[in-house]
């Protein structure tokens, strides 16, 4: 102890300091985890409800509104059969499931059914890649399995002012009322560079304007919607047959 700069002292000092700090941080992480999880769940519910165009959703009433409107949380297999409706879907990680699918392993797809009083809306989580990192969101399809009720997107690290504009009301609003089927064929929603004005008039209801300066992010959104929705097509076809 006499020499503060001896190697032994430095090692012991550093070791004790690290152990104390590590213990402190672990305790904080464990104690605060439930609160953080609740915030994340709340945000997820908000996003699902927003996609389904349920009005006046905020962080405070998300839980209540979600309980009121969400009638089913389903897990589907690749053929559109329902595997589970016990609510496991809420914590299913779509990214992992899509990866499982690519690897040829078993997978299950989450789907949330939101009843807005008039109809059952299918809210589908989305997961894809933007320019710098992951992008994700929700798209809500009406009970005709064709018309988009709403969509919202979020991102990890897209460029502010360019790619990050996918989170704006202006971009997301465009999706309302678009349709994903053309003459019975799945065409998804195209995110059109240069604007839907460049498309023939018959295609405009299946497309939205891309973000200028955010081409790669826009393309990411386009691919994400196409890829994820096509996984759900078997389920939509089944719904149609039942009607």
């Amino acid at each position, binding site marked *: 102890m006499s020499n503060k700069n001896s190697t032994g002292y430095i090692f012991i000092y550093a070791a004790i300091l690290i152990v104390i700090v590590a213990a402190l941080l672990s305790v904080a992480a464990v104690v605060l985890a439930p609160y953080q999880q609740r915030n994340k769940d*709340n*945000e997820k519910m908000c996003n699902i409800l927003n996609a389904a165009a349920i009005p006046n959703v905020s962080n405070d009433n998300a839980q209540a509104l979600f309980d009121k409107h969400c009638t089913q949380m389903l897990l589907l297999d690749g053929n559109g059969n329902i595997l589970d409706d016990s609510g496991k879907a809420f914590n299913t990680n779509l990214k992992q499931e899509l990866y499982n699918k690519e690897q040829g392993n078993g997978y299950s797809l989450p789907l949330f059914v939101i009843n807005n009083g008039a109809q059952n809306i299918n809210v589908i989580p989305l997961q894809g890649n933007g320019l710098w990192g992951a992008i994700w969101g929700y798209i809500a399809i009406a009970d005709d399995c064709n018309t988009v009720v709403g969509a919202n997107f979020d991102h990890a690290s897209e460029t502010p002012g360019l790619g990050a504009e996918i989170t704006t009301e202006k971009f997301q609003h465009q999706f309302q009322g678009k349709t994903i089927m053309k003459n019975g064929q799945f065409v998804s929603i195209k995110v059109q560079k240069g604007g839907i004005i460049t498309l023939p008039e018959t295609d405009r209801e299946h497309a939205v304007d891309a973000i200028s300066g955010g081409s790669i992010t826009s393309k990411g959104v386009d691919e994400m919607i196409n890829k994820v929705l096509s996984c759900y097509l078997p389920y939509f076809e089944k719904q149609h047959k039942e009607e």
Partner: protein
Amino acid sequence: MGNFKKLIIEPLRKANPITILVLGICSCLAVTAKLKPAIVMGISVMVVTAFSNLIISLLRKGIPSRIRIIVQLVVVAALVILVDQFLKAFVYDVSKQLSVFVGLIITNCIVMGRLEAYAMSHKPWESFLDGIGNGLGYSLILIIVAFFRELLGSGTLLGYQVIPQSFYELGYRNNGLMILPPMALIIVGVIIWIQRTRHPELQENNKK
């Protein structure tokens, strides 16, 4: 008591970390587009500077001088992670807006600067006050900048609309330029200008 006043008040005025020492500019640009994140960021930085100053001052006699920067960093990093966890748990939407900038408090020059310059050589209580004072000085500038940016850029304060709708109907437009980071720098520049005009001794030419 005189000491108390000096430690708390001076950083607000002639020893302000942002306008005089010009430290911590990076986060000042990033989080001041709206008032609420600026206030939360100010409080977070104040908590971190105060407690890291206190802890380092308590430890100062035992810290081996060869690893003192590492020890300081460990303490600061631990505090910042704690703050980040608390924000995520209790003010989630603000923590999303602040995103990486909370983590970047670790590299905020004000924190390390005060530790090296003050806490390593002063008693705990005074160091704690020094931390509070510098945190306040930082918050003050952040809040002034955010006030003007939110008022002129979005027409709101803390999210409430303050510019009457009738102004907009008469053709008033929000200044989109205010939302962009460079405007923070210009406002900080204006604050420095005002401050130096009022206190001529701060101007380099007048220093003797």
